[in-house]
């Protein structure tokens, strides 16, 4: 049990899912994965395919063109998988709240496990958010196993 529980928490593979963002958060996410912050220490890797992912890092606001694609990609991900909303837009639409083409929040489409606010959040804030997500998962991991 210990090894199985630890193996999920120690090897979270991240799929980067941009929902038409302004690229600020994406640049910060790429910065998080550079050697300076070295997330591979914790087993976190950026993967290219949705089938390999454990975490979906969502940036940007869902609009009429892509909110169904977000749902579709979430359904395609092998479970257990967790959604992390990065940036003010993904957390609560930010300045685009009353815009003409943004129908809903990310958490109205898929269940979000962690919110990382900021415009854009610093790499330290993103790492802090992931660590808080891991702490939360450690407490309620029994529901998945």
């Amino acid at each position, binding site marked *: 049990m210990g*090894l*199985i529980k*630890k*193996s*999920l928490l*120690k*090897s979270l593979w991240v799929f980067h899912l941009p929902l038409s963002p302004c690229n600020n958060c994406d640049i910060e996410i790429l910065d998080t994965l550079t*050697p*300076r912050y*070295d997330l*591979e*220490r914790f*087993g976190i890797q950026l*993967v*290219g*395919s949705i*089938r*390999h992912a*454990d975490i979906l890092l969502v940036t940007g606001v869902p609009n009429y063109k892509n909110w169904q694609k977000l749902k579709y990609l979430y359904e*395609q991900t*092998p*479970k*257990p998988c967790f959604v992390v909303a990065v940036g003010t837009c993904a957390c609560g639409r930010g300045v685009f709240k009353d815009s003409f083409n943004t129908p809903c929040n990310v958490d109205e489409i898929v269940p979000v496990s962690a919110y990382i606010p900021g415009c854009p959040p610093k790499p330290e804030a993103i790492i802090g958010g992931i660590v808080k997500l891991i702490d939360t998962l450690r407490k309620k991991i029994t529901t998945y*196993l």
Partner: protein
Amino acid sequence: MTEIINSLFFYIVFPGFLFSFVLSIFVGYIDRKLTARLQYRKGPSIMQNLYDFFKLLLKEVTIPENANFMFLIAPFISFACIILSATILWLVIFFKKSFVGDIIVLIYIMTIPSLMLILGASSSGNAIASVGVAREMKMLLSYELPFITSLLVPIIQSKSIKLLDIMQNNYLTVFSFISFLITLIILHAKLNFVPFDAQEAETELAGGILIEYSGLLLGLIKLTKQILLSIVPAFLVLLYFNGGRNLILFFIEYLLVLIIIIMIKNTNPRLKIDQVLKFFWFWIFPISLLNSILSLIFKISFK
């Protein structure tokens, strides 16, 4: 009856499955740690590959709608074949057990994982996977012929197609050193490491040939790659150096060859598939053919 039990023991426990699994975890740790140190970062812990494998065992296996049974079977067959080739190789080194023609068997069995990956990925029905499959096929066509011609040199020098005889009678000459370098490059392509990883290019094809695989199947494919990485240095040391005669010397040379492979991986950019094809057919194949013919002439004239 005892023969069968012995063979099963060899295949499942000591030089086979369990030993290869533990060794591949260790070799994968060396690979990732050295890569991390070369990029000025700390790198993962020694258990990281084990964590990755167990996590992939836990995950749900998703099967594409129009995939057929080959998609499910292919990773298992490639895993079984790589365990078989590891067993044959380690039996020669640890127990001095060998049979006539096992180098030919090894060449065949080490090709099967790539073939199985081609079959499995092409049956998934994904467009990106089919691009990866096309590249993998071109890669296979480009490196298999020079692989066989460059393996002729140790066979000629030790006058045997038995791995044990090659291990005990090989000696280093100019020809065998050139053949060693060529085989190193070719096995690098077989491992799909960075100068030759166009078929699973993470940044352009998003995983390419592996894109539809998830869970247990992906874990088996990753484990197959790691076991291949753990047997490639042993294969090279056995064919070209005198390490096979002494286990301590063997492991020193094994680590050296492994470090060379990881250094090549970390200091080279990715080649396009047409560049790979040109490199293997117009440079590597003529050199290796000329090399083996010259070594044959040399062997006949100076006995």
